């Protein structure tokens, strides 16, 4: 290598080292630890552990706890994603026009992006709790009933994600070239037909991206459950991440590690599609 090349390599090492150290310590080392924890049996009050191979993995994956929490998380996806996406599209389509004062409406629609998951959860706890809540006695979303509690929790996620969904769909709509819009208007299509045959396909990639993001958000739901129900009633809102979070005791960690690897696999499967999409984004300008 030339001297200049050496200098550039040294500088690159210096520039990348801080990030790489953080990634090694808090992204890759824990991944190795998870595999270790999943294949070893930890015992309470003892630092000794025993290699058990895949025994623990198969045992946990087949347990009613794991399968139950996957079911809860899957139901959470079903409750939050389609409705959240549809509402986001509705808000964006309504706000995608030139009207006096439209900026005010856009700010209101986008505002939930500024509320943290904890704030959103307290807001919905206020709305749904059986004592003081305005909707406290609506049985379809009652937090006191195992059959409906997850729907109540889901409501807070839908609301909290609405701002982000709105912002991204609106950006997608505004990226449609004006000529395309005008051409379809001249063709005399009705507004509804124009929406389903032209607009929706054009923002398809954006919606796909959003759907994946919302599914992952749903898989990761924890604060909502922690604040609104604490996993109850009768364990009906114990999501996958709630189970992982509550497996911190030394003798629970093996179980938690298997479930974390399960979550990782699920996330990978879902991200697979989006990742190719993202990678194209990241790569499309090419290397210098």
């Amino acid at each position, binding site marked *: 290598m030339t001297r200049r090349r050496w200098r550039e390599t040294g500088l690159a090492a210096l520039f990348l080292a*801080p990030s790489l150290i*953080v990634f090694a310590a808090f992204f890759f080392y824990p991944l190795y630890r998870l595999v270790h924890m999943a294949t070893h049996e930890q015992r309470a009050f003892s630092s000794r552990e025993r290699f058990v191979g895949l025994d623990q993995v198969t045992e946990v994956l087949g347990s009613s706890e794991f399968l139950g929490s996957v079911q809860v998380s899957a139901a959470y996806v079903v409750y939050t994603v389609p409705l959240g996406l549809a509402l986001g599209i509705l*808000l964006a389509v309504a706000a995608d026009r030139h009207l006096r004062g439209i900026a005010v409406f856009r700010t209101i629609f986008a505002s939930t992006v500024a509320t943290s998951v904890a704030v959103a959860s*307290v807001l919905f706890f206020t709305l749904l709790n059986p004592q003081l809540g305005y909707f406290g006695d609506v049985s379809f979303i009652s937090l006191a009933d195992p059959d409906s509690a997850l729907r109540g929790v889901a409501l807070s996620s839908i609301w909290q994600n609405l701002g982000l969904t709105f912002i991204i769909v609106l950006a997608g709509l505004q990226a449609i070239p004006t000529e395309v819009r005008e051409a379809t208007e001249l063709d005399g299509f009705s507004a509804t037909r124009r929406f389903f045959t032209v607009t929706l396909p054009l923002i398809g990639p*954006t919606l796909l991206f959003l759907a994946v993001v919302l599914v992952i958000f749903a898989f*990761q739901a*924890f604060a909502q459950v922690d*604040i609104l129900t604490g996993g109850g009633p009768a364990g009906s809102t114990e999501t996958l*991440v709630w189970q992982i979070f509550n497996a911190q005791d030394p003798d629970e960690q093996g179980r938690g590690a298997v479930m974390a690897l399960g*979550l990782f696999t699920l996330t990978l499967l879902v991200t697979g599609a989006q990742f190719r999409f993202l990678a194209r984004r990241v790569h499309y300008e090419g290397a210098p």
Partner: protein
Amino acid sequence: MSRRSRAVAWYVLLTALSLVVLFPVYMTLVVAISTPVDYLRAGQPLHPVAPQWGVFANAWTEGDLGRKFALSAVVTAVIVGCQLATSVCAAYAFAFLRFPGRRVLFAVFTATLLLPLEVTLLPNIDTVLRLGWLNSVQGLAVPFLATAFGTFLIRQGFLGIPRDLRDAARLDGLSHLQVLWRVAIPLTRPVIASFGVVAFLSAWNQYTWPRAVITEERWETVQIGLKSLSAATVEQGNVGPAAAVIAALPVLALLIVLQKQLIRGLTAGAVKG
């Protein structure tokens, strides 16, 4: 329909949708300022009952919110500051420097995007525990000091700098550090600002990680404090909602001001253009 009546119809729809979006916020305000027992007795109406504004001051002192705001601010400042520094440096390396192993390292950065915090949660709690970092600023901040998202976003900005400009700067005898500081950063300030706003928002709003590594009340961040305050008796049922309003207001105000940067940051990667 005439143009005018069509506009009216849109206004009606937009207003109705706004009311739906704002309803949870409105009801939280109603419950916060009502006297809980009286509100309950009145049958949870849509308006406040026996309003008392002292609840906000009450929630502030009872929840020790001043301390929690200060801690959240420190942790957020450390995370955002370090993320900006590590991302700008890494982005410069990937955009402008040639070195062996570049593709592999790029893949390593990309791989971190596939590893959500929830997956690595248990081993990371272990690490923090063994470092003695439970209930500390380090414990809250260190795992988040670097981000591939920020690196890629800023790299993209760097790659948009015209080649001629960079070549001219190099011909003028500027070192890489000078190019970074005097050319690359000033020219990509909008991108860096957008990333900063998104980084601020996600650092400030964190819940799962602080909940895991904070076990003492005096180390609670604002977000974690909200949980403790909302699990109260009926008589105290207005304190949690009041605290949520206090917690939400400054961020909401800030983001209304920084709306443009926030939206640019959030839509990066989602929409072409």
